């Protein structure tokens, strides 16, 4: 392990990830050290609805004022059709893939069963600097230019290890990226230093609500103006790391129009209960209930801009598509050796067209999903409209991602149905790409 850590450190430092430089060797830092792992297991996996009030969490306060909000500049496009990632993107996604395959994958099954990500993994992930990717450099961020595509490549790489753990690792990054993109100078000064600091807060973007045909542009959670601030009420579903969340960005209708609000977990009136699901269980999904939660005027993001809200939803969909691509890649790489080794009727089952064609179709649809997701992110980076591309990427990730998950199990037959192999987990996880809204952001 020390050697591996060294490799990651070297690479990350080489590409200017200041996080690792700061944290290298500080593996003793474990902010979850006080909580016994067994206790977390019981809490996370509990089937009984234990609704508790959120109270844990730090106080967020601006240490210094900003004159104006900081934004990452955009990369200038070369104008050529090109599928070559930048050197930085290549190194970054390779580092993250190493981490995903060496750390996340072996921990995935237990984390899935326990409905919680090991604290040590989250710390390591924080040290990788995931929450710093979207933060402007002058605020301590790690990457010079704004790049949704870089976040896509990293998300894809992480999910190749495990989707649930990837969601747990990436959830705080959704909040830091949102604040970087749309926060005003005070919001940035108050919250962003924590996301580039020594203890990254557990944070999450809460959009989904618990009902069929949910449409993020028609929210039931709502905020009304009161005493110069807002009063928030409603329910948010399948929020990653809800129970230990210290900071949330919550989607709520303000005077009939969807908007984003910053909500600290210490605000009174927020209840949280575990909401384990079919998959992405390592993300400790939970349900948040807001009952007349009083928010300051400064909690509203971007003055309730409709454009900002739509962009937030679209970037979230791209993120989930990227995760589906990563898991799809994991399925493909798992079934290929399996069907070549497994024999039936005297020869490898890979010699049968019905089996071989299923593998072909996984590869074809996976590549189509990947390219469509990249295009959506790349358009976002170039300042072009990307609502269409995000919607198409989501549709592909939902539909073909589901099929890839199903085929992954099918190709292993009965062996695919038991927990000896990871394909049953990927089957469950991949369904999330068609269900989830918010939670993540690229």
């Amino acid at each position, binding site marked *: 392990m020390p050697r591996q850590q060294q490799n990651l450190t070297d690479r990350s430092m080489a590409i200017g990830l200041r996080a690792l430089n700061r944290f290298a060797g500080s593996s003793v830092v474990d902010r979850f050290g006080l909580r016994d792992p067994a206790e977390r297991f019981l809490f996370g996996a509990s089937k009984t609805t234990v609704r508790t009030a959120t109270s844990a969490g730090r106080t967020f306060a601006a240490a210094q004022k900003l004159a104006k909000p900081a934004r990452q500049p955009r990369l200038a496009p070369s104008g050529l059709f090109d599928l070559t990632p930048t050197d930085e993107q290549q190194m970054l996604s390779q580092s993250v893939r190493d981490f995903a395959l060496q750390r996340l994958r072996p921990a995935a099954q237990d984390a899935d069963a326990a409905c919680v990500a090991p604290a040590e993994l989250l710390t390591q992930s924080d040290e990788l600097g995931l929450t710093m990717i979207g933060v402007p450099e002058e605020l301590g961020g790690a990457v010079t230019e704004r790049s949704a595509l870089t976040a896509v490549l990293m998300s894809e790489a992480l999910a190749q290890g495990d989707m649930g753990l990837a969601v747990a690792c990436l959830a705080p990054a959704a909040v830091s990226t949102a604040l970087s993109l749309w926060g005003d100078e005070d919001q940035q000064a108050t919250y962003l230093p924590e996301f580039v600091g020594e203890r990254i807060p557990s944070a999450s973007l809460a959009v989904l609500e618990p009902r069929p045909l949910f449409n993020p542009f028609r929210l039931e959670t709502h905020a009304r103006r009161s005493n110069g601030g807002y009063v928030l009420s409603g329910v948010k579903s399948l929020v990653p790391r809800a129970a230990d969340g210290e900071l949330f960005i919550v989607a709520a209708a303000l005077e009939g129009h969807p908007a984003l609000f910053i909500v600290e977990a210490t605000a009174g009136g927020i209840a949280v209960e575990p909401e384990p699901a079919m998959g992405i269980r390592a993300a400790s999904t939970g349900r948040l209930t807001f009952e007349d939660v009083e928010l300051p005027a400064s909690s509203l993001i971007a003055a309730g801009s409709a454009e900002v809200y739509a962009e937030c939803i679209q970037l979230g969909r791209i993120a989930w598509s990227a995760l589906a691509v990563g898991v799809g890649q994991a399925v493909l790489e798992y079934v290929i050796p399996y069907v070549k080794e497994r024999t039936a009727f005297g020869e490898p089952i890979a010699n049968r067209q019905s089996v071989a064609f299923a593998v072909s179709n996984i590869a074809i649809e996976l590549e*189509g999903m990947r390219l469509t997701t990249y295009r959506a992110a790349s358009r976002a980076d170039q300042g072009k409209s990307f609502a269409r591309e995000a919607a198409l990427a989501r549709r592909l990730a939902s539909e073909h991602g589901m099929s890839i998950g199903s085929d992954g199990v099918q190709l292993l037959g009965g062996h695919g149905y038991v927990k000896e192999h990871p394909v049953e987990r990927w089957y469950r996880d991949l369904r999330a790409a068609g269900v989830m809204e918010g939670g993540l952001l690229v």
Partner: protein
Amino acid sequence: MINLEVPRKFGTLIGQAHQMAAEIMRPNSRKYDRAEHAYPKELDMLAAVINGMNEGGALSGAGAAGATQGGGSKNGASADPTGTRNGSNLANVLSIAEVCWGDVGLLLSMPGQGLGNAAIAAVANEEQLQRFGGKWAAMAITEPEAGSDSAAIRTTARLDGDEYVLNGEKIFVTAGDRAELIVVWASLDRDQGRAAIKSFVVERDNPGLKLDRLEHKLGIRASDTANFVLSDCRVPKENLLGSPEIEAKQGFAGVMQTFDNTRPLVAAMALGVARACLEETRERLGEAGTRIDYDAPPNAQSAAAAEFLALEADYEAARLLTLEAAWMADNGKPNSLQASMAKAKAGRTGTDIALRCVALCGAVGYGEGSLLEKWARDAKILDIFEGTQQIQLLVVARLLLGKSSSELK
């Protein structure tokens, strides 16, 4: 740097192709669908324009002729500082899709732009390029007893002095009656299997090449589909494309590498038809009061809107796979896998989109009053020629699984 937008420098080319499609193809679509086997004379003028564009070197044309192997793009190629090239393979895919948005049958009848031209461009030597350049070349592979299994073809080629003597029967030769050259696949020695298969350029007016009949088809009726009999058909030995040696390992691979270039082109044809269907259907649905909303989840919209979104998503995937395959060819990256993936996805998606659009538009889609029913008939061939869906899946599977053709049949 990753960018999946069409490069701006191809704007003029695509604009010209679109204009051609809108002004010449579309108005003549129904006419030549009904008048099967009639020569679409409106295209002669276009061919002259396209050839002018090729020779001018500004950009390659709308047809298959410009497809080249591995980074050697001759027309309109340019590289950025990192060495990325956007060349003739990408230009061809984009312009073919645009022209097929107009009419795929007429594209296949475009003088000088046959699939045989792509084969010549891919494997011909300099002398042959000189001799055959500018001529319209069709491709003759399929036989009554050998379709997808092209290694089993029975047509033979025997060296006799300075000439090869060809004997056999070829069917389904696109533009076979109208082309000036036919690229014929034949075996130098049937006992040596696929390694002995070579391609030969035969002049259309060769007395040993006899037209048997023209097919009546489901679609692409503007394009003639010819069946030939070759009886003691003599061609100069310089008309053999590639190496005359029977090399056990390399031989057939050389012939097959043509497909790496032509499969993305056929995928592009399917993209053109699919986009025509989607645009027409979007408009008709709009008239019927159905709007497509990219922000609302499909399940929260009407079934028609949700279906449209599903079709458009698969179109997008097929399109980007095709651009990827062409981009790889432009940059000298081996693309057999991506070419077959693109062809498989675009072929099946084109047919699926066209047929579903017919149903979405109901009687308007099914009747001859619109072109949707015609596009649905045209689309089907694109999942068959240049390798059927099943052949593409086989190619992809063999590459992914590392299986030989004897292991994975």
